[in-house]
């Protein structure tokens, strides 16, 4: 008996060592990326000056007298993400409420795999469809010289964040204990009132997490946006060609050199900081939801 136990302890400690190493490898990757970005990103910021870099309104990296102001990219990323949330959140939220609480089984089992499919479509395909369908449509409808614009990017992003918003909202709506709903119905509330005043209220931290995740996805998206946004380094305006933080890095990386290349790393660092802030918010929301 005693022998058996000690050999069990031996295999236990080997297993925990293996898991520890795997865990450390994971964390090492994150730290490596983090440290590399800071080392690669800081020199250009130092050289350009943090104020000029973050708040400069002109980006002319290949001019004879180059300027590296990324305010247009930062604002475009913020506006684009906000726009995607404004359109995607109500759409996704109400879809989730419908699917979780009102749809019959048949509708639900038909639609849910389709939403999963939407999540699995590569972003280049979103960009491709956007380029072929959305951009020309915007050009015609709004009578513009070119449809590639912030507006087109917002629509594409709104559709791209739908699956995560819907999925996470459904999960959090379904995690609400049935007793709450029964309590509400027993007071004479109807199903709609019960859903919005009890179920949604109880699920709100999960839904907030869905929004933050959507924000994270939207702000980090490069490929689809690059194909529909036009990519001129303008200050953002709804029907102008614009460039996001992600697309600023992606579009110049292949031919950049010197300070221009360093500045691209700095843009990546700024993007990284945004993403970290979003993740921190998400963790906070989830923790608060967990406490309840």
């Amino acid at each position, binding site marked *: 008996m005693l022998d058996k136990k000690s050999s069990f302890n031996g295999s236990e400690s080997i297993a925990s060592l293996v898991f520890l190493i795997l865990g450390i490898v994971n964390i090492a990757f994150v730290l490596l990326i983090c440290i590399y970005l800071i080392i690669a990103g800081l020199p250009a910021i130092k050289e350009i000056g943090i104020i000029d870099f973050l708040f400069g309104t002109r980006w002319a990296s290949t001019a004879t007298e180059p300027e590296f102001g990324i305010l247009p990219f930062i604002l475009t990323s913020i506006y684009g993400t906000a726009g995607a949330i404004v359109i995607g959140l109500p759409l996704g939220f109400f879809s989730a409420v419908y699917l979780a609480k009102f749809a019959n089984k048949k509708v639900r089992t038909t639609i849910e795999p389709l939403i999963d499919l939407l999540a699995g479509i590569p972003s280049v395909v979103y960009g491709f469809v956007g380029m072929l369908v959305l951009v020309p449509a915007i050009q015609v409808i709004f009578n513009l010289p070119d449809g590639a614009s912030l507006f087109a990017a917002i629509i594409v992003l709104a559709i791209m964040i739908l699956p995560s918003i819907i999925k996470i909202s459904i999960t959090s709506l379904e995690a609400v204990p049935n*007793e*709450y709903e029964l*309590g509400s*119905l*027993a*007071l004479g509330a109807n199903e709609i009132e019960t859903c919005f*005043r009890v179920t949604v209220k109880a699920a709100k931290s999960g839904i907030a997490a869905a929004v933050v995740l959507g924000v994270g996805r939207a702000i980090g998206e490069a490929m689809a946006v690059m194909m529909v946004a036009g990519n001129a380094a303008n200050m953002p305006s709804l029907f102008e060609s614009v460039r996001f933080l992600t697309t600023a890095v992606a579009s110049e990386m292949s031919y950049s050199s010197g300070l221009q290349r360093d500045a691209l790393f700095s843009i990546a660092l700024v993007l990284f900081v945004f993403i970290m802030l979003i993740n921190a918010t998400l963790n906070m929301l989830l923790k608060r939801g967990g406490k309840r």
Partner: protein
Amino acid sequence: MTEQVKDNVIFDVKDFNLYYGSNHALHNINMQIYKNAITALIGPSGCGKSTFIKTLNRMNDLIPSVRLEGSIKYKGQEIVNSDINVYDLRKEVGMVFQKPNPFPMSIYDNIAYGPRTHGIKNKSVLNEIVEKSLTDAAIFDELKDRLKDSALSLSGGQQQRLCIARALAVKPDVLLMDEPTSALDPISTSKIEELVLKLKEEYTIVIVTHNMQQAVRISDTTAFFLLGDLIECDKTDTIFSEPKDKRTEDYITGRFG
């Protein structure tokens, strides 16, 4: 039956049958539930008493496979398979559940939920309703200084009395209680029992209980269910002192159940 007795009948159940899919869960139930009285439904688990009580406010509608037959009249109005407004019915026939189920909001908002749902927006009216409901549920003194606290911070017994107060806030006529004390400790249980006895002056109460002593202590009428049949329904004193049916006698003397 005299006319006066008839006036006192809140629920008149005639030849009532209930099916879950092909499972015949309640067989030919006939009974009457009287106004301002406490009716206890007793019987072993799975005998149909909870199913029956959920029919009285049509909460059974929420289970898709349920089929009802026969007649239950609430104040003379047919509620089985009729197109009555179930929301109005549930407003008049309130319910308290086995497990306390306060909403994850403040104590105040829990009580105000029902009135708000039924269109009361005026702050001072709401304040009055909250105070009155909590007072009627004998919990106002304990909670008056913490109305903004989350209802989930209360103890189980307090939560259950809060749920009773929440049910009272929509001014029901009838209160259905589905084993309201089975999840509570003895002290909380006796508080709820006192409360129920007091509430009988204003409300009609139907209570499902596993605890026969509880039925003896508080109820006026007792109905004994067994395997979907209503075996016997009579004055509580009669049922527990001289039951007419052998099965009732076996159950109350603890020979099974």
